[in-house]
């Protein structure tokens, strides 16, 4: 690979752990883009949630259902409209926002389906990403953004500052909690509004509430 490669994080479950901390026990949860079901599994075992999942990739869906999780094959961009309003306490979008065609539309659908929405995403304002682009002049390739530009499913990158601006723009949405994580998955700060958060955070996790 020609582009700058950043070594992988050691704690891959750090972000999932932090998302689980934001979910109350016994809640009804929809995990959009649930992958192999690691988060749903964690939430079911430790929080006793009534969990459902939606995943685009059939491999992930089969893995989830084989593990006894309630998961369907579906596309966040097109299939969220089928769910009734207020069907869930939490709708989670973990590391998927940047892969949707219409991130704003997906967020609005999630806020309709659930009172609370948890979104985690890689921060394109992270200093290593900025430096990689600045110094090499090539699109950054990191463990979180591990694709070449021509093959990436991640088509709508944003920074933490971009995301907070979008939340403000949506109106009627409160950021209840946020967690800015460093390269090792440790929480740097819970204040997403600072310049430092947008520079040092490798990923952001936001708990949004519909007012």
């Amino acid at each position, binding site marked *: 690979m020609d582009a700058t490669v950043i070594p992988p994080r050691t704690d891959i479950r750090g972000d999932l752990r932090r998302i689980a901390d934001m979910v109350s026990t016994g809640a009804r949860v929809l995990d959009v883009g649930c992958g192999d079901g690691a988060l749903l599994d964690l939430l079911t075992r430790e929080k006793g949630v009534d969990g*459902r999942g939606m995943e685009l990739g*059939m491999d992930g869906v089969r893995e989830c*259902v084989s593990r006894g999780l309630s998961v*369907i094959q579906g596309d966040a961009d097109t299939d969220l409209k089928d769910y009734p309003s207020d069907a869930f306490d939490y709708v989670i979008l973990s590391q998927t926002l940047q892969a949707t065609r219409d991130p704003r539309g997906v967020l609005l659908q999630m806020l309709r389906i659930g009172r609370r929405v948890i979104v985690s995403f890689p921060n394109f304002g992270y200093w290593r990403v900025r430096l990689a682009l600045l110094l090499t002049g090539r699109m950054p390739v990191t463990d979180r953004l591990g694709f070449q530009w021509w093959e990436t499913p991640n088509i709508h990158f944003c920074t933490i500052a971009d995301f907070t601006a979008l939340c403000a723009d949506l109106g009627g949405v409160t950021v209840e909690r946020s967690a800015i994580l460093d390269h090792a998955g440790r929480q740097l700060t819970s204040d997403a509004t600072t310049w430092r958060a947008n520079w040092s955070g490798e990923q952001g996790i936001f708990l949004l509430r519909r007012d």
Partner: protein
Amino acid sequence: MITPPAYTDSSGATAAPALGVLPGHRMVLGADRPMPLDGGGQLGPFTVAYQTYGTLNADKSNAVLVCHALTGDQYVADRHPITGKPGWWEMLVGPGKPVDTDRFFVICSNVIGGCMGSTGPHDVNPATGQPYAIDFPVITIGDMVRAQTLLIDALGIDQLFCVIGGSMGGMQVLQWAVSYPERVFAAVPIATAARHSAQNIAFHEVGRQAIMADPEWRDGAYQQAGTNPARGLAVARMAAHITYLSEAALHRKFGRNLQSRQAITFGFDADFQVESYLRYQGASFVDRFDANSYLYITRAMDYFDLAAEHGGQLAQAFRVGGKGTPVRFCLASFSSDWLFPTSESRAVVHALNAVAANVSFVEIETDKGHDAFLLDEPEFHQVMRGFINGCADHRGLKRRA
């Protein structure tokens, strides 16, 4: 060339198969009160033939009802009494299998209108002393399921842990979940649809016309006449069998290979292996199936339309007391199934999502077409095992020791 006698018999006057004495359980139902039918009228007393596997637990919470497809029967996991072949779903049902008979009490009954022991058109009409033939009332998937509820009542079971089936069996599963949501904990409709499509009705009509065009059919009264519309039924089976496969599977299996010959014969003999195979499928089918039953059961599938009973809104069918159905669903489809394509399963999933029901859905990649649900598809079986075990945990059923 494989061409069994029933098909090649020049007289065509082979007797209808003797389907009278078959092993297994029988239950007479609707004796006190006849069972009402969707088409008006009623049926009773009538017989349901069924098989069971495993043991019903003390609180009767481990019963699994397996629903069979159009030409299936109750011999889901034991040797077929006529063909001698293994049970039609032994890959899925048995000791240690995804539907584990060491753990669950499995029931499989022959549908009413069928010809393997449950009351159907070949049985004697008590009113006339003659076989019903086409005086048998036209039945629906709803009627088949209503008969199953009477059987389950008679077995003393309030709620089935799971109802599972593919194709027409899947239609029954959906009907169970919609009509009796409180009596089903988990529903597994496989390779099925909430309504029979125009294309599927069209194929069924071809099959029925083939039967009725056979001079041996005698307006349905072939038993009285001592004839058997075996040719018509065989053609119906041949046409239907094509719809159970896929272009890719046919090509892989047969290609344009010739049957026991070096060159084409410039005639209408079965030059190609695929022709010989279809002839065999048709000819062997008539040994175990009744032509009038074929008419009645295909009709029941044609009439199936769950949304129609609920103002055309499928989601309404899954609403129970203003809320989403409490039944846990797992749907599965097969990528090369063009008879019940994935889009049909997805339509059911969308309707279930619209009421925020608990639903899982997988599409299995395979080139084996609709028949894949009966075949060796390890991924499918793994998904079934995972879903059923997960549901059993939620239901509080103990894991195997």
